[in-house]
């Protein structure tokens, strides 16, 4: 626990330094840059790239969460059970369709910029959230569900007061997976001019500058690890509250 805390603090510090004071790392990255070429990416501020990257991921994941959880709620109602295979197919297609292909197809319609990336991340993020929400909502403790009906909660009250709170830790695990995938995948958005940290990596690839690639990659990686970690802690906390973790 103590070691974990120190490690986390160190990672946060490293990330902040990389984003806010990239100049500090010039000696570290210098051996990787081509002779005479730039070592540190300065064409745009890393902070604004990071914020725009995170914003894209947050927007796409929120949208995917909204749609996937709504869909999962609908297909776990008795009236919606018939649509379960269909909605599974749709979200599966979303997952198997490569994000690059989505970008290529979306550009003619939405133009260059954040739009196509948002669509690709949204589609890519649906499946893990949908699958987890469906699992969470269909594996609730049967005695509790029976009692919820028996004491007189109506359908909506059962959903809001019992089913969703109890399924929340499992749903959150799906969101976590989806967010981490999106954090990495968002980088390819820069191929169609979305402002993400992928810009740094792509610039590095185009100019054979490993320093740029490493710089961009490190920042994205650190974001992914830290956000993953934070969401795991949140899940544990919620699981404890909902009593799932305590059963011996």
């Amino acid at each position, binding site marked *: 626990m103590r070691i974990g805390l120190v490690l986390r603090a160190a990672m946060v510090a490293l990330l902040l330094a990389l984003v806010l004071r990239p100049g500090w790392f010039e000696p570290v990255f210098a051996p990787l840059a081509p002779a005479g070429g730039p070592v540190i990416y300065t064409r745009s501020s890393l902070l604004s790239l990071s914020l725009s990257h995170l914003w894209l991921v947050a927007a796409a994941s929120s949208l995917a969460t909204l749609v996937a959880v709504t869909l999962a709620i609908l297909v776990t109602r008795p009236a919606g059970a018939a649509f379960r295979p269909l909605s599974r197919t749709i979200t599966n297609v979303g997952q198997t369709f490569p994000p690059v292909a989505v970008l290529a197809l979306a550009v003619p319609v939405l133009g260059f910029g954040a739009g196509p990336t948002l669509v690709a991340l949204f589609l890519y993020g649906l499946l893990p959230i949908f699958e987890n929400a469906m699992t969470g909502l269909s594996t609730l*403790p049967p*005695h509790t569900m029976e*009692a919820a009906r*028996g*004491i*007189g909660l109506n359908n909506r009250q059962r959903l809001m007061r019992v089913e969703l709170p109890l399924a929340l830790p499992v749903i959150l695990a799906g969101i976590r997976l989806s967010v981490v995938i999106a954090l990495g995948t968002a980088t390819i958005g820069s191929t169609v001019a979305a402002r993400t940290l992928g810009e740094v990596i792509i610039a590095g690839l185009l100019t054979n500058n490993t320093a740029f690639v490493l710089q961009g990659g490190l920042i994205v990686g650190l974001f992914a690890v830290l956000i993953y970690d934070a969401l795991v802690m949140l899940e544990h906390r919620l699981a404890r*509250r*909902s009593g799932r973790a*305590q059963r011996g």
Partner: protein
Amino acid sequence: MIEIDRITKVYDGHAAVDEVSMTVETGTITAIVGTSGSGKTTLLRMINRLVEPSSGEVRINGEPTHAVKPHLLRRRIGYAIQGHGLFPHHSVARNIGAVPQLQGWDKAKIRARVDELLTLFGLEPDAYRDRFPGELSGGQQQRVGVARALASRPDLLLMDEPFGALDPIIRTRAQQDLRDIQRKLGSTIMLVTHDMDEAVSLGDKVAVMDQGRLVQYGPPEEIIARPATGFVADMVGDAERPMRLLSLIPVSDLIEEGAAPGEPVTAGATLREALSACLWTGRDAVPVTRDGAPAGRVTLQAIRARAERQA
């Protein structure tokens, strides 16, 4: 008064409950007993419409249950099940206060009711109010489950194998507690069990279900002494019949003047316990105490006579 009027539930052409009629008096415990698949749970669940009857109706104090929306009906009927079914993410107080809250009681009133029930069930309110169900023992969870079912002072309390998940010692305690609380509150309880011992010791009346039909409905003495069918006789068990009868009669019925040696039994104990004390210690009579003071004795001979006469 609860009237069940020719109620039937058909699943795939097979009647799980077949034209059952019975009347339950207010303020009594009715134990519905049967083997699994006898339709006892389905019968119970049709009363609060967790299962909709195929035909027939149930009236509570004269009002048919199908005149009310199911979830509103259920708020007026307490429901306690095996494995308690508490909401694991809500505190004990929130669990118990669930139905009053649905019925729009104000906060102070709910809080007072929760504390009253916790005290009634022997759980110190200050210590237990804010705990979560996962932090309680099995017996405590079960008590909270019953407290939740009683919270809004329902017309009727339905219990489906409420003690099924408890170990034997805690179960006996829980049964006694339920009896005491029922007497204190005057609640009307219908309880489903597969255990004939539980049925005869708790029920003012016992209803025996077999293959969807109500085969006998009467006071426990009658069920034991005069089983209506071979099935009921099997449920009662020939070998245990006299013992079961004796377990229904308090020692106070047979107290006579005189003294006897050895450990006393209390006047509230059953004849079964007195008999057991006689046999175990080789005595022909045991002394009886009432509220700690000697009250006479009960003899082996009197117990024997009583068991014989009943059978």
